[in-house]
């Protein structure tokens, strides 16, 4: 319980920092930190595969993508004049919302957990993916193929030049 609470606090604080940060680069790095914390949580929930993926894809690949995009549009950091006030009040608002949720949503979550229904069998991850969720494999292939052509179509002018 304490471990979970600790991780959640880290993720919350990191997320707030990512939103509040003045520089986009810091936001991107904060996001990576949040991903790492989340993967630690997943280890705790005994979901090692998910944690590995989270670590490699979210903390790795996505951060790289973000940082390269940020470096392309770097000067916008200065150009975009945004009011800071809405971000500076975020911690306060988050606190208020947290209290609100603890009062109003907690009972709802408690009542939801009353309806838990455990499955009879508990197959292994590989088994699940191959036997029960083979459709997802097709989905993954589809979405990866889509991603390839998306990038190809969006950057079409550039690849020609």
């Amino acid at each position, binding site marked *: 319980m304490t471990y979970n609470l600790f991780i959640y606090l880290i993720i919350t604080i990191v997320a707030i920092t990512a939103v509040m940060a003045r520089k986009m680069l810091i936001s991107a790095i904060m996001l990576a930190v949040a991903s790492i914390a989340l993967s630690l949580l997943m280890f705790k929930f005994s979901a090692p595969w998910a944690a590995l993926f989270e670590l490699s894809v979210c903390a790795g690949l996505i951060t790289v993508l973000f940082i390269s995009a940020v470096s392309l549009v770097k000067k916008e950091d200065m150009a975009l004049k*945004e*009011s800071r*006030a*809405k971000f500076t009040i975020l911690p306060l608002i988050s606190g208020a919302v947290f209290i609100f949720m603890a009062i*109003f*949503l907690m009972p*709802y979550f408690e009542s939801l957990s009353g309806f838990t229904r455990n499955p009879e069998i508990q197959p292994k991850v590989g088994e699940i993916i191959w036997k029960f969720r083979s459709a997802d494999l097709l989905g993954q292939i589809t979405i990866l193929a889509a991603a390839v052509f998306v990038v190809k179509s969006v950057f079409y002018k550039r690849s020609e030049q």
Partner: protein
Amino acid sequence: MTINLIAVLLPFICALLIILISDKTKYLKELLSIGVLLTSFIAAALGLAYSSGGIQTSLNLEWLGEISALALKADILSSFLLAAISMFSLAVAIYSFSIDKKGSSKWFYFNILMTQSLASGAVLSDSLLTMLFFWEGMLVFLYTFIALSSDSHEAKNTALKAFLINGATDLLMMVGIIITASLSGTFNMSAISNSKLTLIGWGTAGYTLLLIGAVSKAGAFPFHTWIPDAALNSSASFMSYVPAAIDKLLGIYFLARISIYLYQLSSSMQIVLMALGSITIIVAVMMAFVQQDYKKLLSYHAVSQTGYMILGIGTLNPIGIAGGLFHMINHATYKSCLFMTAGSVERQTGTSNIEKLGGLFNKMPVTAVCFVIAAAAISGIAPLNGFFSKELIYKGTLETGYVWFFVAAELGSFLTLASFLKLGHSVFFGKTPSYLENTKEAPFSTLFPMIAFAAICLAFGFGAYWPIENLIKPSISQIGVNTASELTGFHLDYLFAISIAVILLAIGNHLLGFHLAGNKASKASDHIHHAPLLSWLYDIAEKKFFDIYEMGMRFVKYSAGWIFSIDRFFDKITDDIPSGAFNLTSEKISAIHNGSYSLYMAISLIGAIIYLILAGGLK
């Protein structure tokens, strides 16, 4: 049933075939259509023979479960109407063979065939829903029929006018059908007729809406205004087919069905019906009397005669109903014939303005004789068919005890005869203008249907006993009218005397007008046209002040302004209030309220939360 279905399905298939035939082929489309319509007519006539022989057939295709069934039933009334419709389709198809002014002949025959198919389906339907399907289908082809009958912009406008008027009333009728069905629990007309509905509570609304649909189809006041416009802007073939024949047949058929078969009417509704009939007679015949265009004059008469039929059915006694139905078939015959003469005259002389016509009797003798017979029939001159049906209607009206409606009908009769005297005199008699010296008789294909109709006028007049005994009586006794009393016969009673008096008065009036207008027959109506008060009424009527469509358009124009301002108001609300709410929360947030995207996102999220609360997700 199969034999009746031929009249529905064969024209439909042929219509689809006609689209495929190239525009360049000569006579192929015409001959194909005439052949198909001839087959349909023979089939329908055989069907009529079967059902008058007591064989009542029906067809049920249950395909919507409890909601409805595709139910067709051929009782005597339906078979009779089916035969009549097929006859008019055939006649008009033959007539139009050598008429050029009918638009593209491909689309003309396509429309005729589609109308024949759908109208046949409508009269055969036993389920209100099936009938509605055919009825609404006809609406589409009414539009294309008018719109394609001429290249002009006016034709498209008139088509739109006809479409909107009939579309609006059909919509009302649809609501009426829904009410009727929910009151009785079924769409099936035979089932409803077993326990007739009464005019209590919702029943009144249901019947009134159905009534609007029926009389609007028949072209009664105030839904008639597209007919005179169509007379000017579309072809004589169209006029002799749809407004003169098919619409009357269907409208009056449905009126008879609802008023006698489905509903048990009250005496107050009887007055409403009779008043509607009388008003239609008077208003339309007044307008007809002063027209200077051959076809437009006829088109107002087509409206006026509808009034007689409604009056007849509105009497709710056997004599009146028989008269109404008999008048329906008679009117279709002679009015079709009259429109055909108009088309022939227009074809041969190039104009339909009666001021420019004259003395055509010698040039076009057959057309003229047909005109005289049909005109005598419509005016109710003694031994022709119009006389007998009108006499039945008068008798029925007098039997109800409301003398005023009888007087109105007689006044209508007087003006009808007067206007036909004027029309006939100025077109076929008098001096022949020099530019008409070379006019020739119309070709045989146009004369044949005219002669046939004139012959029917004579036959149904001299032998009025036969159609009344064999067609009208069985039809109405099958839909539940007691026909014990004698319906026909030539009586030398007071009605005959009155009719003679009316004829003499009309002739006198014509001679007076002729004299006052300086011996110009086409101006013989001027002494009434320019009478004080009447001239003012005529003026504003000519400006379409009373036209329900124009009224609607005026209303739409004003209300559009209103709706626009309401729309602006809501626009302001959707634009300003969400941002206004944000303003209240914090001025800072409003400053960063960055245009459209954020607003979209915020609204979406707020909507999501509201939905979840509504769905009880957060309980």
